[in-house]
């Protein structure tokens, strides 16, 4: 029961956010929050551009989304898969263990750090 409630609430919030991010463009509208890390340090964080990328994605513009935050685009399929594995952690421990293999986590960590570094050097 509680699990169903959580899923319903999460889906409802996601739907509301999707409508907002579809209707308003984060690159021109003032209502969207900005990156604290960028504001404080002047450097982009790994998540910078995600709001604009989501806006572009919701409008079907994959190329633009990739330009705003390539990491987000790459991470979305993996997040979906991981969420599925998470929901069946006890029923399907094998899938969970496979997705949480050290080699995979190391790879993701390296990709994130490299992406963080390179996007600040080349202004991606």
């Amino acid at each position, binding site marked *: 029961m509680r699990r169903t409630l959580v899923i319903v609430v999460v889906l409802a919030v996601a739907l509301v956010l999707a409508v907002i991010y579809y209707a308003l463009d984060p*690159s021109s509208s003032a209502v969207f*929050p900005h990156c604290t*890390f960028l504001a404080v340090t002047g450097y982009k964080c790994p998540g*910078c551009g*995600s709001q604009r990328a989501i806006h572009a994605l919701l409008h079907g513009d994959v190329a633009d989304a990739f330009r705003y935050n390539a990491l987000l685009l790459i991470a979305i399929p993996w997040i979906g898969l991981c969420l599925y594995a998470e929901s069946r952690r006890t029923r399907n*421990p094998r899938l969970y263990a496979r997705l*949480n293999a050290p080699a995979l*986590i190391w790879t993701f*960590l390296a990709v*994130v750090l490299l992406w963080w570094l390179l996007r600040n050097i080349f202004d991606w």
Partner: protein
Amino acid sequence: MQYWINFKGVQSGPVDLDGMKQMGLTSAAYVWHEGLADWVKITQLPELQGCYVMEAPAVATRPAAVNGASEPQQPYQPQSQPYQPQDTPVTEPCPPTNLVWAIIATVLCCLPAGVVAIVYALKVTNKYREGDIEGAKRASETGAWWCIASIVLGIVSMPLSMLIMSPGAF
């Protein structure tokens, strides 16, 4: 490949495929080999077909399994694996690594604390594989807090940063 066998509560091994065929195993046997997280029924490994005969499940199988009589609680500890302490039941599932939340926090929250959470996800898996269940649980908990901190701080700090930055920075 070397296999360890738990058959009718008796553990043996390591043996290879030919050795297993000599043992007169039935489908009630459990096997384990290096790389498996836990004991599996012999019928679950396709390469072992032909090493056992099918056996109709006995009526007493279910309660026996619940009592842990036929299900191995303690797997055979081969000498080649000194990193698995004797008192650690490998049957316990891996504690949550929180990897998904770490990834979501990294990609969607502006404070790079999600990266720390990824490191903790790695720690959970590594400690679990070393047989350190307690350590894995601790790392799992710490990682979860990093995820929560990352998401909460991200949400709280965003309005503050709006005062500093011009629109469209995130």
